[in-house]
């Protein structure tokens, strides 16, 4: 019995060592974002701190004078995994004024609203402001019931992006891509889940 215990102890220590070694070499992800929810008039507005989407590849494409469509979906959930109580989808067209060095955003759909001369943070905030949900849509949740939100977006480019696999100069990124066979970042997008929230009184 002692021999078995010793063997098992050794085995679990060995496993533990391996886990520590591998986890240690793998940086943690998913740093939490703070989201504020408030009521403006008869609508619920969300403001995720540090939620940026005009960056990276999308920003590069905009700075190339191209326009991008970004689709947003905001869902209010009764618990972290659903069901969906209310949701709102909205698409926007983004472009970057090359001479003014400011962003322009327009709503896609029935409403014809457009705005320009915005820095990226203001353009992002303007998009989120258009995603407000009517308080009445949350009615069946109950005033004191907690709720969760899911915010997702995805970019669409009307023009093809340069092929990352294309024969080009050897770079560190191409080496990493080649070794990891990472999928090309064609349509960047992201989502965030947050909660629980309560409607402010």
């Amino acid at each position, binding site marked *: 019995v002692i021999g078995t215990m010793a063997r098992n102890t050794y*085995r679990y220590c060995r*496993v533990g060592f*391996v*886990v520590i070694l*591998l*986890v240690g070499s*793998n940086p*943690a*992800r*998913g740093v939490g974002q703070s989201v504020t929810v408030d009521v403006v008039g008869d609508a619920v507005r969300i403001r995720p701190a540090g939620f940026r989407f005009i960056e990276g590849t999308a920003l590069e494409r905009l700075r*190339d*004078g*191209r*326009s991008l469509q970004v*689709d947003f*979906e905001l869902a209010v959930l009764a618990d972290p*995994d659903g069901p969906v109580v209310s949701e709102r*989808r909205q698409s926007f*067209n983004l*472009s*970057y*004024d*090359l*001479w*003014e060095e400011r962003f*322009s955003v*327009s709503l896609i759909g029935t409403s*014809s*609203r*457009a*705005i*320009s*001369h*915005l820095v990226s943070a203001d353009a992002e905030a303007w998009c989120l402001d258009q995603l407000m949900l009517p308080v009445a849509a949350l009615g069946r949740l109950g005033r004191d019931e907690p709720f969760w939100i*899911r915010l*997702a977006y*995805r970019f669409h480019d*009307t*023009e*093809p*992006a*340069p*092929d990352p*696999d*294309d*024969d080009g100069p050897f770079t560190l990124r191409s080496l990493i891509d*080649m*070794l*990891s*066979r990472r999928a090309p970042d064609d349509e960047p*997008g992201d*989502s965030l*889940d947050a909660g629980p929230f309560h409607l402010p009184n």
Partner: protein
Amino acid sequence: MQRGFCHGLLGLLVAVAVHLALSFPVAHAQGTDALDGAIIQSAEVSGLAVDQLSPDLRDDIDALVGAPLHRERVDVLATRIEAEHPEFVVAVRPIALPDGESRVIFLVARISDDRDLVSNINARYTVESVEISGVPDTDVSRALREDLQGLVGERLDPDEAERLDDRLEAELPGRDVRRRIARGSRSGQIHVVFEVGEARGAAWIDFAPSRSMWVYHSELAWSGTLDLPMGTRNHRLTVGLVVDDKEELIEEYTGYRVRLESRKVVTERVGLSLEFADLRPSWQRSTLSALGTNPGIGEIYQNRRTVEPAVTFAFSPQLRVRGGASVTELESLFQPQDLQIAGTVVASIGFDQTWNRELGSTHDVHASYEVRTSTTALDSDLDYTRQLGEARYQFQSGRNLVMARVSFGRIGGAAPLFERFSLGNASTLRGWSKFDVAPAGGNRMVYQSLEYRHRQLAFFFDAGSVWDQGTDAQVRLSTGVGFHSDNFFLTVGLPLNADGVDAQFMTGVSW
């Protein structure tokens, strides 16, 4: 209603006026525009009520009257109007009057009233020059080159630019055209570049997936494989190093592989591959023991060298068939001079599809079937046929992921040990060890797995059986939890119908 109609009509007229003003080519405008220095007789704002401007801005516009015209000063005021009303754009028209005087009009238009501006705010600027990069000018027809140059001097028309883009792609098959806009040399002017590059999109034939992994299994210990691919978009050479791989087969093997692949031979529908592997197996005691009690299963060997050429034909980017040969030379463990040849013809069909119908959710389906059958035409000493079918489905919605997988295998005849099926490693029948399930593998196999992941946390249920024809198939069940982050995983699997409860730990990275 009548008032609404009037407002609508007024708005339309202003929009048309501004469009005309913005569209007015620079070359034409030079004849009627006032020159710098002309005394400004009046300054007006059209399309926006003046009382909607700040008092300071109104004063500065009024202060233009009587002063000599300076284009930069007027442009600054236009920018200030736009800054105060970001939903508008402003065009300035300095009109020459008799006696060296001028009249300045700020034409204000709502962005949402102009389709081109909604599409791209840079449509307000005049095209200064157009360039085609990536191909010699002679590759493009004269008519198209002239039409491209026709953009110069006009306001950027995104629709027309798109049409020219399409015509350029039509004239250059197999190439993609990417349009880029940059500032011109003068304020308010832009430079349009049509960049021509290699065509992209879904490849009709994929390269073989990487086998790189470094995995620890509490019963099987370490396994390591490193694939080093190098090459270009369509051609690749992969050198693979294998160290004590116990994951894939019932043999533990070390060695190297070299794989040469081309996924575009004349056309993107045809691909070629050639793989050479030189591997040195070693055997677990339990496997030797099982072979000892049933010598008919197969003979153990100490060296295994394989050459496998294949041709792939793709009917579409989703559906392809593959045909080829595989010749393996097996060096007997006990009599090294004795070589056995396993020569087979290989045929397979594969289907892959991804659906992305809703925002934030994707469906992935993969299905494949492969048959290998030995033939004397390849000097095979072993007579067998091996079939393997597999289907996988994956559904992802937000942070939730469901994966289902089924596979089956069947061997008829006397197959070499490396062809026999096994279950019970870090990716199949998790919670079991393959050397407990079937230490010498089996010639029949069925397996299914269901896994649910929420963020990095995974729950799974596996069931499967490996057995030999004529013996009872015992179905093994297991369940467990896992943690997945990027390429890293940590899994604890628990056999459900074992004699004792002995959890298996599996962890590692694969990429």
